[in-house]
């Protein structure tokens, strides 16, 4: 008896109710079985089934067998009658492994909320202690390296510097140039209303020197180098490379973290200077268009009116931002545990944290410079 749909019938045999099933019972054919089964059960009025007759079944797999046994409310010792040896074997296999599916959990929302808040707080505090330990370790390793400079691992520093400085020059240059153009254009447009459009030169130069040059460079570096540090170290953590280093007596902070921090601390001022110059060039370019200035006029006016401390304030911030971005990138990389999935999460986290810290530090620097009156 071959048909496209599985069939179900409840009947009585020798005083016992029997579930008769037939047709194909596979994972692909039992989609609609719930309704058919309910109808058949209602029609027969049977409650408990003692035996199962599956001799009319032509196709069977584990999902089908499971469904038949469940419709019968069968336990491990219900007798199943089958036509084929193979089917009997299958029923035996399924009966031997039947388990109640774990009930779907209905979480308590309020408790869940408290648990979440508490968990976040605790993990935040743990993070702070880890961070403190990490900073301490960096300081110790840095101190030791100062005593024996061999420990700075110069080849690694040079390789990292190449990655974070030379390879970032194009993107930093292009973006800062465009920022310079935009600031100068806006300055000219706004200051024109007061007839003071030539002050756009000062506006552009001061904005770029003090804030925009260093801030944009830091954001680009956090996005491209901070994330790379997390991903590199995190992947090494997943591959157990860091554990391998530890067992060989190599300190990962000395071998992986310190070169990256040194490299970024060197690269940030260099990139910031480069960004400043590109920004000024952009500003000058915009002024030649909107102010009918020449390049020479722009730079002469700038030299006469913009104090050198505007430049210094930006450059002082740069290495600090570099240290913070590198340290956060490496720290998050070392936090990776278990699967590669975590690497992605922590990379995102490291970029967000780095940019957040950079902006907070920038605000602190503003206050300091205000108090120092520079």
């Amino acid at each position, binding site marked *: 008896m071959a048909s496209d749909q599985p069939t179900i019938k409840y009947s009585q045999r020798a005083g016992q109710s029997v579930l008769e099933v037939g047709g194909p019972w*596979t*994972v*692909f054919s*039992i*989609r609609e079985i*719930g309704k058919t089964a309910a109808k058949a059960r209602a029609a027969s009025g049977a409650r408990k089934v003692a035996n199962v007759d599956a001799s009319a079944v032509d196709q069977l*797999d*584990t*999902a089908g067998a*499971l*469904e038949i046994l*469940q419709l019968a409310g069968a336990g491990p010792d219900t007798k199943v009658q089958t036509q084929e040896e*193979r089917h009997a*074997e*299958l029923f*035996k*296999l*399924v009966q031997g*492994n*039947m*388990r*109640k*599916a*774990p009930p*779907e959990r209905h979480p308590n929302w309020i408790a869940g909320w408290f648990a979440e808040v508490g968990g976040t707080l605790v993990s935040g505090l743990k993070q702070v202690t880890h961070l403190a330990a990490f900073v301490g370790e960096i300081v110790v390793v840095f101190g030791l390296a100062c005593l024996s400079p061999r420990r700075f691992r110069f080849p690694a520093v040079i390789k990292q510097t190449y990655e974070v400085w030379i390879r970032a020059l194009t993107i930093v240059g292009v973006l800062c140039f465009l920022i310079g153009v935009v600031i100068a254009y806006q300055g000219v447009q706004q200051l024109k209303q007061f007839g003071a459009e030539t002050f756009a030169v000062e506006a552009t130069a001061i904005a770029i020197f003090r804030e925009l040059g260093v801030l944009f460079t830091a954001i680009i570096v956090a996005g491209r180098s901070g994330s790379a540090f997390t991903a590199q170290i995190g992947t090494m953590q997943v591959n157990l490379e860091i554990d391998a280093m530890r067992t060989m007596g190599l300190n990962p902070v000395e071998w992986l973290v310190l070169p990256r921090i040194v490299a970024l601390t060197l690269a940030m001022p260099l990139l910031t200077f480069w960004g400043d110059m590109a920004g000024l060039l952009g500003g000058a370019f915009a002024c030649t268009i909107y102010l009918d200035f020449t390049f020479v006029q722009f730079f002469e006016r700038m030299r006469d009116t913009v104090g050198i401390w505007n430049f210094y304030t930006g450059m002082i911030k740069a290495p600090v931002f570099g240290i913070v971005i590198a340290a956060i990138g490496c720290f998050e990389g070392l936090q990776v545990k*278990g*699967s*590669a*999935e975590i690497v992605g999460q922590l990379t995102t986290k490291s970029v967000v944290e780095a940019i957040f810290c950079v902006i907070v530090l920038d605000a602190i620097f503003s206050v300091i410079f205000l108090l120092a009156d520079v």
Partner: protein
Amino acid sequence: MSDTAAIEKAAEVHLPELQEGGQISDHSKGRKVAIRVRGLKTQFGEGKVIHERLDFDAFKGEVVGLVGGSGTGKSVLLRTIIGLIRQREGSIEVLGTDTKGLFGEKERQLQSRWGVLFQDGALFSSLTVAENIIVPLREHAGLDEAMMREVASLKIALVGLPADAGDKKPSELSGGMRKRAALARALALDPELLFLDEPTAGLDPISASLFDRLVRRLQQSLGLTVLMVTHDLDSLNAICDRVAVLLDKRVVAGTMDELLAFEHPWIHEYFHGPRGRAAARQAGTGDEQEGQRG
């Protein structure tokens, strides 16, 4: 000349004439073909040719072991058959369907009829074990949620995992448990054809032989066809009906006895080496014990 060099040099000896499908003697009589590979050529870029004029047959309801030295392209052959690597030449027919140019609904249909166990499990790391098993069920079978969870917990029990393993993430499981979980996912749709890539690699001998027995039992009761890449001589002896050896970019396939008698230096060294002998001896005593019990 060192021993390995001698063996490698001897491996360049040309193969004797084989029967259809790379068989030593013809076993095809009265059997349906599950996988038929003819004239296969695979090559990466313009570089190394991995397989050339490769013929291979796997029959329905048998367990075929695929062996070969490192770099002979065992995994590549498996990945070519399941369509992850495209062949340069030749035809591959799986369950009566030519895989060349297969796409869309037909490809999905074929894919729902086979299960693949990758070497490290390749479980989706963001999902729990039970959810991993439910993924193919939801995609291909469309059962209701409760039914799918029941099927998933049956599969978890079938492969011998404890009930609480279903709620765990793959990263929380040990290597052996991950393999079992991956097998459960491969079996989710009760496939007709099961591909196993080094299923027992990295397992301890007890877990490995349990895994072998599990595969054998499932294969017999579900009527599966199994193609397994393996280096485990115990697995070959214990559960494989036939063994396919990758030699000289081609396949030589036969039963264990045929291969033991086959005159080729690499095959000889593989099966008659100290490890091969030990595994064969163990399998032999195992049979005797079974015989006494029966």
